[in-house]
Protein backbone atom coordinates (compact mmCIF):
# COMPACT_ATOMS: atom_id res chain seq x y z
CA UNK A 1 0.00 0.00 0.00
CA UNK A 2 1.37 3.36 -1.00
CA UNK A 3 1.01 6.28 1.32
CA UNK A 4 1.20 9.97 0.55
CA UNK A 5 1.85 12.93 2.78
CA UNK A 6 1.12 15.92 0.61
CA UNK A 7 2.42 19.41 1.14
CA UNK A 8 -0.09 21.70 2.91
CA UNK A 9 -0.46 23.81 -0.23
CA UNK A 10 -1.27 20.70 -2.24
CA UNK A 11 -3.94 19.91 0.32
CA UNK A 12 -5.25 23.42 -0.22
CA UNK A 13 -5.38 22.60 -3.93
CA UNK A 14 -7.48 19.54 -3.15
CA UNK A 15 -9.65 21.65 -0.89
CA UNK A 16 -10.33 24.00 -3.78
CA UNK A 17 -8.66 26.89 -2.05
CA UNK A 18 -5.87 27.04 -4.64
CA UNK A 19 -5.52 26.16 -8.30
CA UNK A 20 -2.58 24.47 -9.93
CA UNK A 21 -1.33 27.79 -11.16
CA UNK A 22 -1.36 29.15 -7.64
CA UNK A 23 1.14 26.53 -6.54
CA UNK A 24 4.84 27.34 -6.62
CA UNK A 25 6.54 25.61 -9.56
CA UNK A 26 8.27 23.09 -7.32
CA UNK A 27 4.90 21.87 -6.00
CA UNK A 28 3.03 21.63 -9.29
CA UNK A 29 4.15 18.10 -10.04
CA UNK A 30 2.97 17.01 -6.62
CA UNK A 31 -0.32 18.81 -7.19
CA UNK A 32 -0.80 17.15 -10.55
CA UNK A 33 -0.05 13.77 -9.01
CA UNK A 34 -2.66 14.38 -6.31
CA UNK A 35 -5.26 15.34 -8.90
CA UNK A 36 -4.36 12.31 -10.99
CA UNK A 37 -4.95 10.04 -8.01
CA UNK A 38 -8.27 11.70 -7.49
CA UNK A 39 -9.23 11.25 -11.13
CA UNK A 40 -8.35 7.58 -10.89
CA UNK A 41 -10.71 7.13 -7.98
CA UNK A 42 -13.45 8.75 -10.01
CA UNK A 43 -13.30 5.97 -12.58
CA UNK A 44 -15.49 3.76 -10.46
CA UNK A 45 -18.77 3.21 -12.31
CA UNK A 46 -22.13 3.88 -10.77
CA UNK A 47 -24.43 0.91 -10.22
CA UNK A 48 -28.05 1.63 -10.99
CA UNK A 49 -30.92 -0.71 -10.17
CA UNK A 50 -31.95 -2.96 -13.04
CA UNK A 51 -35.45 -1.58 -13.17
CA UNK A 52 -34.06 1.89 -13.69
CA UNK A 53 -31.97 0.63 -16.55
CA UNK A 54 -35.05 -0.87 -18.19
CA UNK A 55 -37.00 2.34 -17.88
CA UNK A 56 -34.09 4.31 -19.20
CA UNK A 57 -33.62 1.95 -22.12
CA UNK A 58 -37.26 2.36 -23.02
CA UNK A 59 -36.73 6.04 -23.31
CA UNK A 60 -34.05 5.30 -25.92
CA UNK A 61 -32.33 8.49 -25.16
CA UNK A 62 -28.68 9.02 -24.99
CA UNK A 63 -27.54 11.58 -22.63
CA UNK A 64 -24.40 12.99 -21.23
CA UNK A 65 -22.98 11.69 -18.09
CA UNK A 66 -21.24 14.43 -16.28
CA UNK A 67 -18.94 13.75 -13.46
CA UNK A 68 -17.80 15.94 -10.77
CA UNK A 69 -15.35 14.87 -8.23
CA UNK A 70 -13.83 16.20 -5.16
CA UNK A 71 -11.54 15.57 -2.30
CA UNK A 72 -11.66 17.25 1.01
CA UNK A 73 -8.46 15.94 2.38
CA UNK A 74 -6.28 13.51 0.51
CA UNK A 75 -5.15 10.79 2.83
CA UNK A 76 -3.19 7.61 2.40
CA UNK A 77 -6.47 5.80 1.97
CA UNK A 78 -7.11 7.77 -1.21
CA UNK A 79 -3.89 6.52 -2.74
CA UNK A 80 -4.82 2.98 -1.83
CA UNK A 81 -8.30 3.39 -3.28
CA UNK A 82 -6.91 4.91 -6.44
CA UNK A 83 -4.43 2.11 -6.88
CA UNK A 84 -7.15 -0.45 -6.33
CA UNK A 85 -9.39 1.15 -8.91
CA UNK A 86 -6.61 1.31 -11.46
CA UNK A 87 -5.64 -2.29 -10.82
CA UNK A 88 -9.18 -3.45 -11.30
CA UNK A 89 -9.29 -1.71 -14.66
CA UNK A 90 -12.66 -0.07 -14.19
CA UNK A 91 -14.16 1.74 -17.19
CA UNK A 92 -13.40 5.41 -17.30
CA UNK A 93 -16.67 6.94 -18.42
CA UNK A 94 -19.71 4.67 -18.24
CA UNK A 95 -22.71 5.79 -20.19
CA UNK A 96 -26.34 5.36 -19.32
CA UNK A 97 -29.70 6.81 -20.02
CA UNK A 98 -31.66 9.27 -17.93
CA UNK A 99 -35.06 10.86 -17.86
CA UNK A 100 -35.60 13.36 -20.61
CA UNK A 101 -33.55 16.51 -20.30
CA UNK A 102 -31.86 15.51 -17.06
CA UNK A 103 -28.15 14.97 -16.66
CA UNK A 104 -26.72 12.48 -14.20
CA UNK A 105 -23.97 13.92 -12.07
CA UNK A 106 -21.81 12.08 -9.61
CA UNK A 107 -20.49 13.96 -6.63
CA UNK A 108 -17.48 12.51 -4.85
CA UNK A 109 -15.70 13.76 -1.78
CA UNK A 110 -12.83 12.24 0.14
CA UNK A 111 -13.40 13.25 3.73
CA UNK A 112 -11.36 11.23 6.24
CA UNK A 113 -12.96 11.12 9.64
CA UNK A 114 -16.26 12.59 8.50
CA UNK A 115 -19.44 11.15 9.94
CA UNK A 116 -21.81 12.75 7.46
CA UNK A 117 -21.38 14.46 4.12
CA UNK A 118 -24.10 16.20 2.14
CA UNK A 119 -24.16 18.33 -0.97
CA UNK A 120 -26.11 21.57 -0.95
CA UNK A 121 -26.65 23.94 -3.80
CA UNK A 122 -28.99 25.81 -6.04
CA UNK A 123 -30.54 22.50 -7.09
CA UNK A 124 -31.84 21.70 -3.59
CA UNK A 125 -32.36 25.23 -2.29
CA UNK A 126 -29.11 25.04 -0.33
CA UNK A 127 -30.56 22.56 2.11
CA UNK A 128 -27.51 21.28 4.00
CA UNK A 129 -29.19 17.99 4.90
CA UNK A 130 -31.38 17.20 1.90
CA UNK A 131 -28.86 15.36 -0.25
CA UNK A 132 -26.54 13.08 1.70
CA UNK A 133 -23.59 11.31 0.14
CA UNK A 134 -23.06 7.66 1.01
CA UNK A 135 -19.83 6.21 2.28
CA UNK A 136 -18.10 4.09 -0.32
CA UNK A 137 -14.95 2.10 -0.90
CA UNK A 138 -12.22 2.91 1.52
CA UNK A 139 -14.57 4.49 3.99
CA UNK A 140 -13.23 7.97 3.40
CA UNK A 141 -14.88 8.22 0.01
CA UNK A 142 -18.37 9.73 -0.11
CA UNK A 143 -20.51 9.51 -3.22
CA UNK A 144 -23.89 10.74 -4.44
CA UNK A 145 -25.43 10.48 -7.88
CA UNK A 146 -28.06 13.02 -8.85
CA UNK A 147 -30.12 13.83 -11.90
CA UNK A 148 -29.99 17.55 -12.49
CA UNK A 149 -31.58 19.76 -15.13
CA UNK A 150 -29.32 21.39 -17.71
CA UNK A 151 -28.16 24.81 -16.63
CA UNK A 152 -25.77 26.32 -14.19
CA UNK A 153 -25.62 25.06 -10.64
CA UNK A 154 -23.63 26.24 -7.64
CA UNK A 155 -22.93 23.92 -4.76
CA UNK A 156 -20.71 22.97 -1.87
CA UNK A 157 -20.26 19.94 0.33
CA UNK A 158 -21.37 20.09 3.94
CA UNK A 159 -19.22 17.93 6.21
CA UNK A 160 -20.72 16.87 9.53
CA UNK A 161 -23.45 19.43 9.14
CA UNK A 162 -21.15 22.34 9.74
CA UNK A 163 -18.18 22.64 7.45
CA UNK A 164 -18.85 23.95 3.92
CA UNK A 165 -16.26 22.57 1.52
CA UNK A 166 -15.99 23.49 -2.17
CA UNK A 167 -15.29 20.80 -4.74
CA UNK A 168 -11.53 20.99 -5.30
CA UNK A 169 -11.71 19.73 -8.86
CA UNK A 170 -14.53 21.99 -10.03
CA UNK A 171 -14.45 25.65 -11.02
CA UNK A 172 -15.31 27.91 -8.11
CA UNK A 173 -16.51 31.44 -7.61
CA UNK A 174 -16.80 33.85 -4.71
CA UNK A 175 -20.08 33.18 -2.92
CA UNK A 176 -20.37 36.77 -1.73
CA UNK A 177 -19.87 35.69 1.87
CA UNK A 178 -16.11 35.20 1.83
CA UNK A 179 -16.24 31.57 0.79
CA UNK A 180 -16.26 29.68 -2.49
CA UNK A 181 -19.04 27.92 -4.35
CA UNK A 182 -18.29 25.21 -6.85
CA UNK A 183 -19.83 25.55 -10.27
CA UNK A 184 -21.43 22.91 -12.43
CA UNK A 185 -22.46 23.83 -15.96
CA UNK A 186 -24.63 21.25 -17.71
Amino acid at each position, binding site marked *: MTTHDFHPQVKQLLDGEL*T*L*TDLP*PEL*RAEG*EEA*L*RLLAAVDREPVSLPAVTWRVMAALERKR*QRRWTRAAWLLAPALAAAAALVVLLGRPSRPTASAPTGMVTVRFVLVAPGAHQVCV*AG*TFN*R*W*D*PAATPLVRSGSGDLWVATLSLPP*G*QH*QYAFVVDGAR*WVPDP*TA*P*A*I*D*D*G*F*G*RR*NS*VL*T*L
Partner: protein
Amino acid sequence: MRCLGGLLLGLAALATTLDAQQTIAERLSGRVSPEIAGLVQDLGGAALQRGLPADPLIQKAIEGNAKGVPEERIAAALRVVVTQLDTTAAALRNAGFENPLDTVEITAGAFAITAGLHGRDITALARTGRPTPDVIVGLRVAGTLAALGVPPAETVTLVSQTLRAGASPGDLLALPGRVQSEVARGATPAQAAAGLARAAAAQARHGPPPDHGHPSHPPAPPHP
Protein backbone atom coordinates in the same frame (compact mmCIF):
# COMPACT_ATOMS: atom_id res chain seq x y z
CA MET B 1 -59.95 59.02 -20.33
CA ARG B 2 -56.18 59.03 -20.65
CA CYS B 3 -55.89 59.56 -16.90
CA LEU B 4 -58.16 56.59 -16.28
CA GLY B 5 -56.05 54.42 -18.57
CA GLY B 6 -52.91 55.45 -16.78
CA LEU B 7 -54.51 54.76 -13.42
CA LEU B 8 -55.57 51.29 -14.54
CA LEU B 9 -52.10 50.54 -15.84
CA GLY B 10 -50.62 51.74 -12.57
CA LEU B 11 -53.00 49.57 -10.58
CA ALA B 12 -52.18 46.58 -12.77
CA ALA B 13 -48.46 47.15 -12.25
CA LEU B 14 -49.02 47.46 -8.51
CA ALA B 15 -51.04 44.24 -8.46
CA THR B 16 -48.31 42.45 -10.40
CA THR B 17 -45.66 43.68 -8.00
CA LEU B 18 -47.68 42.67 -4.96
CA ASP B 19 -48.26 39.24 -6.49
CA ALA B 20 -44.57 38.83 -7.22
CA GLN B 21 -43.67 39.87 -3.68
CA GLN B 22 -46.16 37.34 -2.33
CA THR B 23 -44.50 34.64 -4.44
CA ILE B 24 -41.09 35.66 -3.14
CA ALA B 25 -42.38 35.58 0.42
CA GLU B 26 -43.73 32.06 -0.08
CA ARG B 27 -40.42 30.82 -1.46
CA LEU B 28 -38.52 32.31 1.44
CA SER B 29 -40.93 31.12 4.08
CA GLY B 30 -39.08 29.36 6.87
CA ARG B 31 -35.72 29.70 5.13
CA VAL B 32 -34.62 33.20 6.12
CA SER B 33 -35.30 35.73 8.84
CA PRO B 34 -38.24 38.12 8.43
CA GLU B 35 -35.78 40.99 7.94
CA ILE B 36 -33.99 39.29 5.06
CA ALA B 37 -37.30 38.14 3.60
CA GLY B 38 -38.50 41.73 3.62
CA LEU B 39 -35.35 42.95 1.96
CA VAL B 40 -35.58 40.30 -0.76
CA GLN B 41 -39.20 41.23 -1.38
CA ASP B 42 -38.26 44.88 -1.76
CA LEU B 43 -35.23 44.27 -3.95
CA GLY B 44 -36.91 41.46 -5.87
CA GLY B 45 -40.07 43.45 -6.49
CA ALA B 46 -38.06 46.37 -7.80
CA ALA B 47 -35.96 44.05 -9.92
CA LEU B 48 -39.03 42.47 -11.47
CA GLN B 49 -40.36 45.90 -12.36
CA ARG B 50 -37.11 46.52 -14.25
CA GLY B 51 -37.47 43.20 -16.06
CA LEU B 52 -34.81 41.47 -13.97
CA PRO B 53 -35.17 38.01 -12.43
CA ALA B 54 -35.75 37.71 -8.69
CA ASP B 55 -34.61 34.11 -8.44
CA PRO B 56 -30.89 34.92 -7.95
CA LEU B 57 -31.86 37.07 -4.97
CA ILE B 58 -34.00 34.34 -3.46
CA GLN B 59 -31.22 31.80 -3.94
CA LYS B 60 -28.58 34.09 -2.42
CA ALA B 61 -30.71 34.80 0.63
CA ILE B 62 -31.40 31.12 1.24
CA GLU B 63 -27.75 30.26 0.67
CA GLY B 64 -26.57 32.86 3.15
CA ASN B 65 -28.99 31.66 5.79
CA ALA B 66 -28.04 28.02 5.22
CA LYS B 67 -24.37 28.91 5.69
CA GLY B 68 -25.06 30.79 8.89
CA VAL B 69 -23.95 34.11 7.43
CA PRO B 70 -24.80 37.23 9.49
CA GLU B 71 -27.77 39.18 8.18
CA GLU B 72 -25.72 42.29 7.41
CA ARG B 73 -23.52 40.28 5.12
CA ILE B 74 -26.46 38.62 3.42
CA ALA B 75 -27.99 42.04 2.80
CA ALA B 76 -24.72 43.29 1.28
CA ALA B 77 -24.49 40.22 -0.95
CA LEU B 78 -28.07 40.74 -2.12
CA ARG B 79 -27.28 44.29 -3.17
CA VAL B 80 -24.26 43.04 -5.10
CA VAL B 81 -26.50 40.57 -6.91
CA VAL B 82 -28.87 43.37 -7.89
CA THR B 83 -25.95 45.37 -9.25
CA GLN B 84 -24.77 42.39 -11.28
CA LEU B 85 -28.23 41.85 -12.72
CA ASP B 86 -28.48 45.53 -13.68
CA THR B 87 -25.01 45.46 -15.22
CA THR B 88 -25.90 42.42 -17.27
CA ALA B 89 -29.17 43.93 -18.47
CA ALA B 90 -27.34 47.07 -19.56
CA ALA B 91 -24.69 44.98 -21.31
CA LEU B 92 -27.32 43.01 -23.20
CA ARG B 93 -29.05 46.21 -24.29
CA ASN B 94 -25.69 47.52 -25.49
CA ALA B 95 -25.47 44.38 -27.61
CA GLY B 96 -28.72 45.30 -29.28
CA PHE B 97 -31.10 43.18 -27.24
CA GLU B 98 -34.45 44.81 -26.66
CA ASN B 99 -36.87 44.71 -23.78
CA PRO B 100 -38.21 42.50 -22.41
CA LEU B 101 -34.87 40.80 -21.90
CA ASP B 102 -34.70 37.08 -21.32
CA THR B 103 -34.33 36.54 -17.57
CA VAL B 104 -32.37 33.33 -18.14
CA GLU B 105 -29.88 35.32 -20.20
CA ILE B 106 -29.63 37.92 -17.47
CA THR B 107 -29.04 35.24 -14.84
CA ALA B 108 -26.32 33.64 -16.96
CA GLY B 109 -24.65 37.00 -17.50
CA ALA B 110 -24.81 37.89 -13.82
CA PHE B 111 -23.12 34.61 -13.01
CA ALA B 112 -20.38 35.41 -15.52
CA ILE B 113 -19.86 38.78 -13.84
CA THR B 114 -19.65 37.07 -10.46
CA ALA B 115 -16.98 34.86 -11.94
CA GLY B 116 -14.91 37.85 -13.04
CA LEU B 117 -16.17 39.07 -16.40
CA HIS B 118 -17.16 42.69 -17.04
CA GLY B 119 -20.19 44.27 -18.65
CA ARG B 120 -18.26 44.85 -21.88
CA ASP B 121 -17.42 41.14 -21.99
CA ILE B 122 -21.10 40.27 -21.70
CA THR B 123 -21.84 42.68 -24.54
CA ALA B 124 -19.17 41.12 -26.74
CA LEU B 125 -20.38 37.59 -26.06
CA ALA B 126 -24.01 38.53 -26.60
CA ARG B 127 -23.17 40.07 -29.98
CA THR B 128 -21.40 36.91 -31.06
CA GLY B 129 -23.80 34.41 -29.63
CA ARG B 130 -27.15 35.17 -31.16
CA PRO B 131 -29.63 33.48 -31.28
CA THR B 132 -30.64 33.48 -27.62
CA PRO B 133 -29.99 29.81 -26.72
CA ASP B 134 -26.40 30.20 -27.87
CA VAL B 135 -26.03 33.38 -25.84
CA ILE B 136 -27.24 31.62 -22.72
CA VAL B 137 -24.89 28.66 -23.10
CA GLY B 138 -22.06 30.99 -24.14
CA LEU B 139 -22.49 33.15 -21.06
CA ARG B 140 -22.67 30.14 -18.76
CA VAL B 141 -19.56 28.63 -20.26
CA ALA B 142 -17.76 31.98 -20.17
CA GLY B 143 -18.53 32.29 -16.48
CA THR B 144 -17.28 28.78 -15.87
CA LEU B 145 -14.06 29.50 -17.74
CA ALA B 146 -13.57 32.65 -15.68
CA ALA B 147 -14.15 30.58 -12.56
CA LEU B 148 -11.33 28.33 -13.72
CA GLY B 149 -9.00 31.31 -13.80
CA VAL B 150 -9.13 32.12 -17.52
CA PRO B 151 -8.72 35.91 -17.87
CA PRO B 152 -11.69 37.81 -19.33
CA ALA B 153 -10.04 38.60 -22.67
CA GLU B 154 -9.10 34.98 -23.32
CA THR B 155 -12.51 33.82 -22.12
CA VAL B 156 -14.33 36.10 -24.56
CA THR B 157 -12.03 35.13 -27.42
CA LEU B 158 -12.41 31.41 -26.80
CA VAL B 159 -16.20 31.42 -26.47
CA SER B 160 -16.64 33.81 -29.40
CA GLN B 161 -14.36 31.80 -31.68
CA THR B 162 -16.10 28.59 -30.71
CA LEU B 163 -19.50 30.11 -31.44
CA ARG B 164 -18.28 31.44 -34.79
CA ALA B 165 -17.00 27.98 -35.64
CA GLY B 166 -20.57 26.76 -35.41
CA ALA B 167 -19.99 24.65 -32.34
CA SER B 168 -22.87 22.79 -30.78
CA PRO B 169 -23.96 23.47 -27.20
CA GLY B 170 -22.22 20.25 -26.25
CA ASP B 171 -18.96 21.51 -27.73
CA LEU B 172 -19.33 24.75 -25.81
CA LEU B 173 -20.06 22.94 -22.57
CA ALA B 174 -16.96 20.81 -23.09
CA LEU B 175 -14.66 23.83 -23.12
CA PRO B 176 -14.12 24.10 -19.35
CA GLY B 177 -13.15 20.44 -19.15
CA ARG B 178 -10.72 20.86 -22.02
CA VAL B 179 -9.15 23.85 -20.33
CA GLN B 180 -8.83 21.86 -17.12
CA SER B 181 -7.10 19.07 -19.01
CA GLU B 182 -4.56 21.49 -20.45
CA VAL B 183 -3.99 23.04 -17.04
CA ALA B 184 -3.37 19.59 -15.58
CA ARG B 185 -0.65 19.20 -18.20
CA GLY B 186 1.07 22.36 -17.04
CA ALA B 187 -0.49 25.17 -19.06
CA THR B 188 -1.86 28.25 -17.40
CA PRO B 189 -5.60 28.79 -17.84
CA ALA B 190 -4.83 31.68 -20.21
CA GLN B 191 -2.51 29.54 -22.32
CA ALA B 192 -5.00 26.70 -22.44
CA ALA B 193 -7.82 29.00 -23.52
CA ALA B 194 -5.66 30.72 -26.12
CA GLY B 195 -4.68 27.38 -27.63
CA LEU B 196 -8.26 26.22 -27.83
CA ALA B 197 -9.31 29.55 -29.33
CA ARG B 198 -6.69 29.18 -32.05
CA ALA B 199 -8.00 25.72 -32.81
CA ALA B 200 -11.56 27.04 -32.96
CA ALA B 201 -10.50 29.88 -35.26
CA ALA B 202 -8.78 27.41 -37.56
CA GLN B 203 -11.91 25.31 -37.57
CA ALA B 204 -14.00 28.34 -38.46
CA ARG B 205 -11.68 29.02 -41.42
CA HIS B 206 -11.22 25.50 -42.71
CA GLY B 207 -14.29 23.65 -41.49
CA PRO B 208 -14.59 20.97 -38.84
CA PRO B 209 -12.01 18.20 -38.62
CA PRO B 210 -13.05 14.57 -39.15
CA ASP B 211 -13.86 14.15 -35.45
CA HIS B 212 -16.20 17.11 -35.38
CA GLY B 213 -16.03 19.16 -32.24
CA HIS B 214 -12.47 18.27 -31.38
CA PRO B 215 -9.64 20.13 -33.08
CA SER B 216 -7.33 17.84 -35.01
CA HIS B 217 -4.35 19.56 -33.46
CA PRO B 218 -5.07 20.06 -29.79
CA PRO B 219 -3.21 22.98 -28.30
CA ALA B 220 -0.04 22.23 -26.46
CA PRO B 221 0.74 25.37 -24.54
CA PRO B 222 4.25 25.62 -23.17
CA HIS B 223 4.90 24.95 -19.55
CA PRO B 224 5.13 28.13 -17.52
